[in-house]
């Protein structure tokens, strides 16, 4: 039993060392099981109801059902389904009869229903994970089918994760006011991301997403109405947007856990630009405070600002341009959105979560001032309640 290796020398390589220790331990009549940190989560099922109300405009309720499960440690399946019920007033018109642009909302009510579902399957091969996804969304005047593939690779003792993905969506746009409308829209999306654990208690994640789409982008319900002083009959122009759109979004997230305070700082910044002329910045700061095992509270504040699309105009200029939209979501504005989330974890893997938030979008909140004059301030409240169960 004399040893020729070992003493005074350098220890053997780690993988071999673990194998040797484990083998020697297992020679004894002991129990050895895979060391699993965290919950022994093999599955989760949950339901959520989202309520959204814009002052006098629109109400959305969205029951969402989701589930995920793991099989044999290497397969992961996630699925979700949602139904949106949109009720409220129909899209707006713009008038400048009084000499300045005024937003007007027609009184006609709409009642629309959207159903969506998605399926996500992942297969893990050691440090590499490959997943495929399919998403379908249907409403009376809009159908979307999308699929995606994504690879994830853990490097550097899992301190670094690299992800790359491709997605394609195939949409068809129709209209309840124009039965002949059946226009396609296709989008390709490319994603590259990296997650780096910086210190044991902090990490940063950066994801770059580019998309390239072409097809029908016009809103069939949106009209721009302009009264020229020299005309008796107002000029009405339907929404006309470019037939292609390229976008780039860069999202960076930072997480840092403070052991003493038992809380986590969450900071997200997103930059977005497209070839319609929109440049947008989103900054969100949140603090998740844990109180013992059971309660967490997460206050958050999000700031958003965007510049207007090149073809955005609340009134029809003369001469009429080839592309024009008065959709105020394409205008220049900014928004502040505070929210509060409370999480309660109960015995037996039951998690209750409630989120309440307020949205305030206004031209005055545009970064550096100078928001679109015709932008009508939007105030909305939303609430999300969910129940989930892990097993």
């Amino acid at each position, binding site marked *: *039993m004399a040893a020729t290796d070992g003493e005074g020398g350098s220890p053997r390589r780690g993988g071999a060392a673990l194998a040797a220790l*484990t083998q*020697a331990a297992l020679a004894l009549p*002991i*129990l050895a099981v895979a*060391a699993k*940190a965290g919950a*022994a989560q*093999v599955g989760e099922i949950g339901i959520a109801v989202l309520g959204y109300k814009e002052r006098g405009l629109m109400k959305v309720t969205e029951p969402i059902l989701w589930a995920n499960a793991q099989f044999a440690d290497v397969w992961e399946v996630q699925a979700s389904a949602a139904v949106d019920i949109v009720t409220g007033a129909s899209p707006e018109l713009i008038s400048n009869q009084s000499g300045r642009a005024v937003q007007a909302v027609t009184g006609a009510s709409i009642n629309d229903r959207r159903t969506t579902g998605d399926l996500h399957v992942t297969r893990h091969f050691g440090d590499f994970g490959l997943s495929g996804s399919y998403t379908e969304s249907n409403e009376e005047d809009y159908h979307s089918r999308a699929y995606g593939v994504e690879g994830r690779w853990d490097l550097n003792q899992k301190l670094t994760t690299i992800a790359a993905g491709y997605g394609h969506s195939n949409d068809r746009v129709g209209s309840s006011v124009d039965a002949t409308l059946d226009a396609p829209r296709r989008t390709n999306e490319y994603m590259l991301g990296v997650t780096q654990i910086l210190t044991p208690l902090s*990490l940063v994640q950066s994801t770059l997403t580019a998309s390239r789409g072409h097809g029908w982008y016009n809103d069939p319900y949106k009209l721009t109405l302009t009264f020229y002083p020299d005309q008796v009959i107002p000029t009405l122009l339907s929404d006309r947007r470019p037939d292609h759109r390229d976008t780039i979004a860069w999202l960076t997230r930072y997480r840092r856990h403070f052991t003493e305070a038992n809380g986590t700082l969450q900071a997200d910044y997103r930059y977005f630009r497209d070839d319609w002329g929109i440049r947008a910045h989103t900054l969100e700061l949140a603090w998740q405070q844990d109180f013992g095992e059971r309660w967490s509270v997460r206050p958050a504040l999000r700031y958003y600002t965007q510049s207007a699309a090149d073809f955005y105009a609340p009134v029809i200029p003369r001469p009429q341009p080839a592309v024009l939209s008065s959709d105020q979501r394409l205008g220049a504005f900014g928004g502040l959105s505070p929210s509060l989330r409370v999480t309660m974890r109960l015995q037996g893997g039951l998690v209750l979560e409630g989120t309440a938030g307020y949205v305030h979008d206004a031209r005055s909140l545009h970064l550096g001032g100078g928001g679109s004059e015709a932008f009508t301030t939007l105030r909305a409240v939303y609430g999300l309640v969910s129940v989930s169960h892990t097993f």
Partner: protein
Amino acid sequence: MSLHRFAFRAMAAVNEVQVHAQDRDAAAAMATPAIAEVRRIEAKYSRYRKESIVSRINAQAGGAAVAIDDETARLLDFADTCWRQSGGRFDATSGVLRRAWRFDPGAEAPSQAALDALLPLIGWDRIERTREAVRLPAAGMELDFGGFGKEYAVDRAAWMLREAGAKSALVSLAGDLAILGAQPGGAPWRVGIRHPRMEEVAIATLPASSGAIATSGDYERYIEVGGVRHCHVLDPRTGRSARGFRSVTVHAPSCLVAGSASTIAMLMGREAGLEWLDRLGLAHFCVLEDGAIVDRFEARSLQPAGEHGTA
């Protein structure tokens, strides 16, 4: 189902078995054999008990070989593996250093001469052993199961709990523990890691639903001389205390593996120890000499959910 806890004294410590069961009686039926197994191992391997196999081997140092059973032979094989994998730092014959070290308040660190006199009595590779017998070649040499006996007892207790039908249980011997299945509903057990400088204070809480967690620290037995802490984790090559870590906690499939991995890391010191732990690929949590924390448990759980989505 409710949680039932059974505290018991063994191996000079307060220990505990926790079991989820229908009622107290059912829980006791599962915990009792596990506790009995811990006591059996203590009686068999404690160097404080004259009749233990370890005491008999030590009493025969320099003399005759002592017959051993299969269980003991396998434990000595495990000690041999630890010695090889640690480059000789983990040595089951290093217990003789206790003759020079006194970890009582006000005690002094031993002189180099006192340590030098003991070092020739240390040497795992000099032990003569077969499957049936073991012999310490020189009078004064000692075999000590302190580095893996308790860990073995934890693993055996977990085995007994499972044999008794426990689906969700935890056994903890002086803070080294094994976990048998998540809590009902899938919630993990929350394992508190003791603050190395504050008693009764947890420096971290680690979630675990299976496997074993063991900690080596410089706080169990130590003396401070001139502001320098000398702990009971001793390097067999110098006779001096390990330096670099206040504590090392490792999560592994068995407590024997977790305990030896953490002790070897302590003995290697900060740089080599962290590298060793990283290479092992086991989840670990370390408090370094300067109080800094290296957490290879928690960081992954910070990961934002639902990111990197396509389409």
